[in-house]
């Protein structure tokens, strides 16, 4: 359900970008989705198919998802480590003074269109 809301945002942004570039039909949308963004790629795909096919400009348009690995940085020892494996506590020095440096993205990277017209 979360994913459906996101899909409506993606559709709005993609249509805007397509119109701005004089594009009639979009063939693929490429997304960067962080590992800890709370987006479930399978749900996102299902919602995408359902909603995109209702739009002339996006009928049959493919959603391509790049997964961005989540990385956390430790403010005490400077280590960078995998968030999914170790969470909030630094595996090197056990500090909790850590913050996510990537992995939270829900970003439209690019759209792909057919260029033989």
């Amino acid at each position, binding site marked *: 359900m979360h994913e459906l809301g996101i899909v409506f*945002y993606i559709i709005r942004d993609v249509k805007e970008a397509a119109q701005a570039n004089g594009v009639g039909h979009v063939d693929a949308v490429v997304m960067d989705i962080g590992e800890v963004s709370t987006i479930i790629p399978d749900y996102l795909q299902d919602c995408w198919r359902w909603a995109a096919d209702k739009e002339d400009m996006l009928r049959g348009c493919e959603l391509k998802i790049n997964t961005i690995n989540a990385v956390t940085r430790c403010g005490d020892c400077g280590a960078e480590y995998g968030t999914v494996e170790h969470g*909030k506590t630094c595996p090197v020095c056990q500090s909790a003074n850590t913050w996510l440096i990537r992995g939270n993205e829900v970003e439209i990277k690019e759209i792909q269109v*057919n260029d033989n017209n």
Partner: protein
Amino acid sequence: MDKVKVIEIKKSVFADNDEDAARLRSELKRRGVYLLNLMSSPGSGKTTTLIQTLKRLEGRLRVSVMEADIDSDVDAIKIQEATGVPSIQLHTGGMCHLDAEMTRQGLDNVALSDSDLVILENVGNLVCPAEFDTGAVRNAMILSVPEGHDKPLKYPLMFSVCDLVLVNKTDVMPYFDFDMDKCREYVHMRNPKAVIIPICAKTGEGIDAFADWLVQEVKNWKQQ
């Protein structure tokens, strides 16, 4: 062969909503209205807490309530009947959260010139509502004792966006292994500045502290 042309966008899906929300916040500021976004899991006690709190705010603040629900309107009716405070129901049409645009549409049906404080009861859910800035001045959430003190570990985003955490249903503490000190520690890991108030919506314990917090917040917002 078809040639593929790539148009780069590089834009967060949340960017437009964040802008909408900031715009809404500054409009509310201009009108002297404080919007609180109240979130929690289903059944943590949002509606019960509001009923208790609204009774204590009578004569101190002029309050309106917006109840967001996927499809029903039981909460708005309950609030209105129990307290007489004007309440409207927002239907999210299947969506698990409210965004700034939906919040704005809801506010169009609220008498803003007669309100110091508008409380939005968001959809019961610990994940999705945290992603979307509604335009509220502050986010608050209710964690109820039966859910367990480890929730800040499992739902980090929710706890990092909340300025106030109400720990509800303290009357059932004897039956659960809920550890209040651990709870405080975990909440502060997510947001060191979060205010934590233990409450019991059933008996009214702690509700005065919440009401006082609201009065102070609204005062600060109007003076700032």
